[in-house]
């Protein structure tokens, strides 16, 4: 196993997880536990492939993926903020709707419930092979990565700047910290929450689009395979801080990529496949323990 390929695989596997984690983080800061990331990703993956194949344009497919997820997030915010549905209930509803709706569309319009695989699909922009080989180790790992990987790298500081260095970000955090105080200070809390959910849709859309358009170029029912929930776990571990959250997601991506490579050795597959989830449980336990220690009153 070469270090370049491990690094490339970590980047590739972490990208959807980091995006999903940021999507869950931005709503968590507005005091919304967003379990709908998974469903938004699935909608994005489907619309990216369906529209990309229809128009034969990677550019339009990319935007269609984002639009699909943002549409799902608007449904989510309408249900919760306008009509007062519980966030968890509505989120699970979005997930079910996304899984069932995409399957329905496959069956109804494409007559192939097994998946949507266009014969030819336009390629999204990737770093050309050999263009960065003069940089040792990191160069070959970055070659062949899609534009969305770079957008993800930019999304982490962008989220940080938005939350901590803009007035809107401060309002959003205030609305999440203490709704009543924020309201009495003149902040439109519902609008801030709606904004958080929409940004969450945008990020989840990037995640789903990356999954479908990066290498695979097809859509399968349930192809997100729980990545939205791993992202949610990363957010909880990172306590809603952009850098910690992204770090946790990369950690999960790293264990996933490492696990893939360990399968070549004679280690039982079940154990290896368990790794990212064990890492998630350990990380969450550690995070709780840290808070526990910090909040303990000092000894007299």
């Amino acid at each position, binding site marked *: *196993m*070469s270090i370049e*390929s491990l690094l490339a*695989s970590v980047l*590739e*596997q972490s990208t*959807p997880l980091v995006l999903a984690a940021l999507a869950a983080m931005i709503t968590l800061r507005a005091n919304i536990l967003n379990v709908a990331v998974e469903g938004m990703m699935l909608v994005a993956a489907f619309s990216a492939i369906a529209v990309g194949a229809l128009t034969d344009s990677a550019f339009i497919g990319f935007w269609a993926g984002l639009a699909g997820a943002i549409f799902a997030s608007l449904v989510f915010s309408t249900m919760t903020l306008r009509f007062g549905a519980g966030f968890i209930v509505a989120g699970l509803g979005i997930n079910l709707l996304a899984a069932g709706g995409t399957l329905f569309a496959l*069956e109804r319009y494409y*007559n*192939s*419930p*097994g*998946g949507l*695989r266009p014969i030819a699909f336009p390629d999204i922009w990737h770093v050309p092979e050999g263009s960065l080989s003069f940089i040792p180790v990191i160069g070959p790992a970055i070659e062949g990565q899609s534009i969305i990987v770079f957008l993800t790298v930019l999304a982490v500081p962008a989220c940080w700047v938005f939350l901590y260095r803009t007035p809107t970000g401060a309002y959003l955090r205030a609305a999440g910290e203490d709704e009543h105080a924020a309201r009495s200070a003149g902040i439109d809390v519902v609008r801030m929450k709606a904004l958080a959910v929409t940004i969450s849709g945008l990020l989840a859309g990037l995640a789903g689009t990356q*999954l479908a358009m990066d*290498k*695979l*170029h*097809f859509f*399968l*029912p*349930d*192809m997100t*395979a729980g990545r939205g929930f791993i992202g949610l776990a990363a957010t909880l571990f990172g306590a809603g801080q952009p850098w910690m959250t992204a770090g946790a997601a990369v950690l999960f991506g790293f264990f*996933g*990529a490492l696990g*893939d*490579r360990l*399968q*070549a050795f004679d280690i039982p*597959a*079940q154990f290896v*496949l368990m790794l990212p989830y064990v890492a998630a449980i350990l990380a969450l336990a550690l995070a709780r323990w840290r808070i526990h220690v910090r909040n303990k009153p000092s000894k007299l």
Partner: protein
Amino acid sequence: MHFRTLTSTVAALAATFAVLSGPTMAQEEFSAVYVMSDNLGDMGFNDNAATGFKRAEEEGVKTRLLQASPTDPQLWRQNLEAVSNSGDWDVIFTGPNMHDNLAAVAPQHPDQKYVFFDDQLDEPNVLSIKYAQNEGSYLAGALAAIAATDKEDFPLTDGEPKIAVVAGMDLPVIQDFILGFKQGAATIEPDIQIQVIFIGNFNDAQKAYDLTNTAIENGANVVYNVAGPAGLGILKAAADSDKYAIGVDSDQNGIHPDNVLASMLKQIGNSIYTSIGQIKDGTAEFGTLKTFGLEDDGVALVYNDALVPDSVKAKIDEAKAKVVDGEIEVDSAF
């Protein structure tokens, strides 16, 4: 011609209304009905089954396929009860997802004959049919071993005896595939290195893609797809790294025509056609389980003719002959 279409339409209506209108065709004709839990058009299991009924129909058997939405289990049961109550059909076929329904309905109609394929039910009036995926995988293993070591006929390989199988989950039926594959590869090349890799589910195509890339980085020249829907990711990874793959379940040769050497198929249509013949002749043993393997074309390797030369096919036919003769017993997980 017009008369035939008309009778088909009438028969279709009759089947829908529980055949209340009574027999619409002469009764000396042998008749078979397939109660489905799915629709046609999946380019896989169901369409494959339909080919068997079509072949039987060409020989004068009256057939009817009762499609039903996969999300409407009520309708599967209704269809099964309707055709059982009518008593108009010599044999009723049914398949996946129907175990509980058939277990409830079959004992109530002891004189009605049933064929249950791709599953098993022990009732005296039910003939169960299963498929020897280990024997089909044996041939896939032989082909993979030849392709990995024969650089002249297979230019994308590096000649090293290294192959891989990327599977969905560690289940008995999947192990049956893997055992056959390993044994087939070892008969061609005793020191062959086979990586066995599991995705952990059947729909994470991105993980399948990454795992296949890892297997190829570790030297695999041919990758066998045993991963259901996620297998599309395996084939894509093999094509992107310019190595070979072997497909499964349906004819996947056309998906990446330069890389997919062959597909290992359960020939459900063949097994249905054969069993209709046997029931007609009265040689079918109801109450038993029949396994269709290489001998009776229940499983087969469908080649991509552009990639696999005739000399290689001849070698694999030799291996097949040994299994059919009983000279080689293929390992099974069951």
